[in-house]
């Protein structure tokens, strides 16, 4: 096969190059690494600057959020100073940057915990929800998109497009509310909210803060099933939204491939439909798919605020929203920085995976 042969050639070239690195290649590699780190640092710095400035423009008064609106001026002035707000803005920002460099994100004015420890607690909740949602979205969305493309114009394609359109156009908080109303309040099939049943609260603590993982590690099967059952509805709703996006993208990518000449050649050679679709066309959309799946995953990890609110899910989205409402700037800045890091990490991971699934990317 032409495409298969092409892959092999690139792969062999890459292997040879990697065995015999010359000095200039190493220098180029070091330069690229430095450039990449520079881009990452600039991105994170930009994020912090923008968030810091916007945070100062928000009309909410962080001091009143802490002491209450009836406090007298003496108390106000005291807490104002304690929070470092008496310093010029550039000093406040400089101090914060210095702390961040020492991996100290400061203390949340709301929770009174170090922001890093708050993030370590809330992020696993979002991680397990987002991961499950992405698995559901990709597991259903990609095959659906591929099948819709292959059977373009048939009822399968129409169904896939309607499902996708509904997923795109239905507000997720509304869907969440309806699911709770029907499956929780009326049918009693799903739990109403939270990460685990009341009976199981506090039975499993750490080490990962992902209840599903921790319950498995501790062998607490009742907690495990309870956690799984609680995550099901929000994960399926988020997964449905992801599925809508991924099925549309998969369909589009696949249609483009199916129009290529090598597919015509394969058909002319008498190759069956299944190998044409899955062994040839699908292999060529994997990089694009990986990109959109990574983007969808990033979006979910950023905090699925609405679903977390509807399902009382104590994740990153809810944490960040509360922090914004109460002008808890340490928590806001820490969360934004953390989200930035996560996005960068997922993008880097995608880049690495590209190299495994597409040999053409290795030479660059």
């Amino acid at each position: 096969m032409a495409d298969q042969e092409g892959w092999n050639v690139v792969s062999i070239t890459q292997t040879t190059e990697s065995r015999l690195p010359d000095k200039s290649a190493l220098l180029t590699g070091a330069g690229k690494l430095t450039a990449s780190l520079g881009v990452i640092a600039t991105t994170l710095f930009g994020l912090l600057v923008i968030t810091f400035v916007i945070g100062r423009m928000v009309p909410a008064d962080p001091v009143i959020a802490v002491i209450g609106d009836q406090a007298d001026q003496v108390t106000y002035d005291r807490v104002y100073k304690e929070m470092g707000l008496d310093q010029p803005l550039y000093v406040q920002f400089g101090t914060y940057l210095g702390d961040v460099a020492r991996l100290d994100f400061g203390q949340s004015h709301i929770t009174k915990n170090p922001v890093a420890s708050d993030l370590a607690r809330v992020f696993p909740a979002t991680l397990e929800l987002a991961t499950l949602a992405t698995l559901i979205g990709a597991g259903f969305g990609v095959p659906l998109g591929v099948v819709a493309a292959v059977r373009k114009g048939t009822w399968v394609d129409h169904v896939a497009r309607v499902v996708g359109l509904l997923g795109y156009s239905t507000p997720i908080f509304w869907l969440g509310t309806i699911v709770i109303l029907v499956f929780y309040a009326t049918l009693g099939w799903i739990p109403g909210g939270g990460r685990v049943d009341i009976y199981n609260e506090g039975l499993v603590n750490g080490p990962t803060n992902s209840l599903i993982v921790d319950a498995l590690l501790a062998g607490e099967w009742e907690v495990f099933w309870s956690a799984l059952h609680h995550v099901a509805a929000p994960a399926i709703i988020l997964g449905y939204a992801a599925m809508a996006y991924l099925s549309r993208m998969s369909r589009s990518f696949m249609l483009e491939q199916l129009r290529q000449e090598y597919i015509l050649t394969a058909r002319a050679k008498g190759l069956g439909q299944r190998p044409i679709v899955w062994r040839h066309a699908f292999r060529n959309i994997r990089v694009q798919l990986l990109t959109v799946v990574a983007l969808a995953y990033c979006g979910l990890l950023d905090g699925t605020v609405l679903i977390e609110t509807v399902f009382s899910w104590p994740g990153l989205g809810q944490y960040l929203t509360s922090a914004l409402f109460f002008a808890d700037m340490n928590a806001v800045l820490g969360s934004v920085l953390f989200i930035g890091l996560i996005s960068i990490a997922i993008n880097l991971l995608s880049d690495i995976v590209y190299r495994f699934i597409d040999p053409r990317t290795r030479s660059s």
Partner: protein
Amino acid sequence: MTNAHIFALASATALSLFAAPFASAATPADQLVLASNMSSMRGLDPHELNQLESAEVVANLYERLVVLAADKMSEPEPGLAESWIVSPDGKTFTFKIRSGVTFHSGNDLTARDVEWSLRRLVKLGLAPSTDLRQWGFSAENVDTLIRATDDATLVIETPEVWNANLILFSLASFSTSILDSAFLADKAKDGDMGRAYLQTADAGSGPYALRSWRSNELLIADAFKNYWQGAPAMRRVLIRHMPESSAQRLQIEAGDIDVATRLSSTDLNALDTGDKVTIQKTPGFGFYYLALNQKDEILSKPKVREAFRYLIDYDGLAGTVMKFYGVKQQTIIPAGLPGASGENPYTLNIDKAKALLAEAGYPDGFSKVYYATPVTPEYEVAQSLAANAAKAGIKLDLQGGDHIGKFRARDFQLFSARSGERLPDPHAVLNSYATNADNADAAKLTGLLAWRSAWDVPEEIQTMVTAAAHETDPSKRSDLYTKINAAYLEASPALITSFQRTDAKAVRNVVKGYIGHATWLTRWDTVTKAE
């Protein structure tokens, strides 16, 4: 594995999530489950927090010298103090501390702990310290004025003579909770008197001990087995963070939670029609008020202020928006307190308002910016007022948002919100609404609503408020408050009250003994369940 297999596996996994066994919904018979919006909880240090949800937790983790029963607020009862004596001059309070009380740590509670705790409150100087500082205690004098003479005796001297109830009520507030001084000595860092530690932990002797608190998620408190009054019936209390009112409503209907709080008017109405839940309305010592900035030339005219009183639809709001959130009240002393009056002379009367505006020299009305808190029911009340004002020719540019900072800085024209005091005494409300010792901007008496409104409160009223606070004769004091109430009503005040606040909670009928407390001290140890 083929793609078809992967697809099938993904389907099976998703379906199995729904097929997982689901435990029964009802809350356990020996556990109390509360739902709350925990976003505004700011730590659990009794000497630092100033917020209702945290206060309820602290009320059950700690104890105080004096107790105010929810249904008999005016009569202080013994708490950690077995008894007390007030000296004939009214300035010295001697408390006999109860023996046999232990902290959650196992340490015995003594008068030394009480001394250390009350001094700590004053010395930290944070928001709740007002509860003692307003009577003249300061970081400089507290070591002299509050002292343990032995392990069982605590003496408190007040710098001036105050009505004894004011001091006792303060000693019943969550802010005067007694802490385990020996335990906290080990936890203190950089001389912070255990402040950092107490944000997320407890050092009390109350009927419940904090087991865990994950902010904005869950709080668990376990019954304290060695509690001196006996272990409570509910062996555990859980508070779940549920910011969505509709989610709370569905869960209380399903029996997943026992008490729902901060519900919307719609959800309260819906629950009120069912038979599984009772809506509990606890009157609070505060009001829904409209503040008119007296630095504004137009708003400072008494007839204009009077006109606004005729633009509020008291009866219409009482039956709708305010059904669960307040009780109509136009006078300044909350119902149930000495001097309170049932008099509500004002009704919505656009023509009367127009006539008053014409008399004030504004027959064609005027335009002003109106800040209102964008939450239920404050915003709906503001919208109603703006609509009625428009009929009288006053154009109010209603702006939602967080404008409390501007109100504190006197940088507003009209502002409306809700207030809440924690002392079950007229003085608490009057001190804020009807005293303003120095109306200059530089005075920065930002804790007083009257100062924020730049209202130069009539001298006669201020004198009476001060006299009543010092008056020790209950009868004379009650008479004074009656006079103040009438004088305030007649003064065309810059702070117009329309409803006394009530805090509504939905409680499952199987829950007994959960009684909302007007000073935020709702107890859990009185709760039982009758399944």
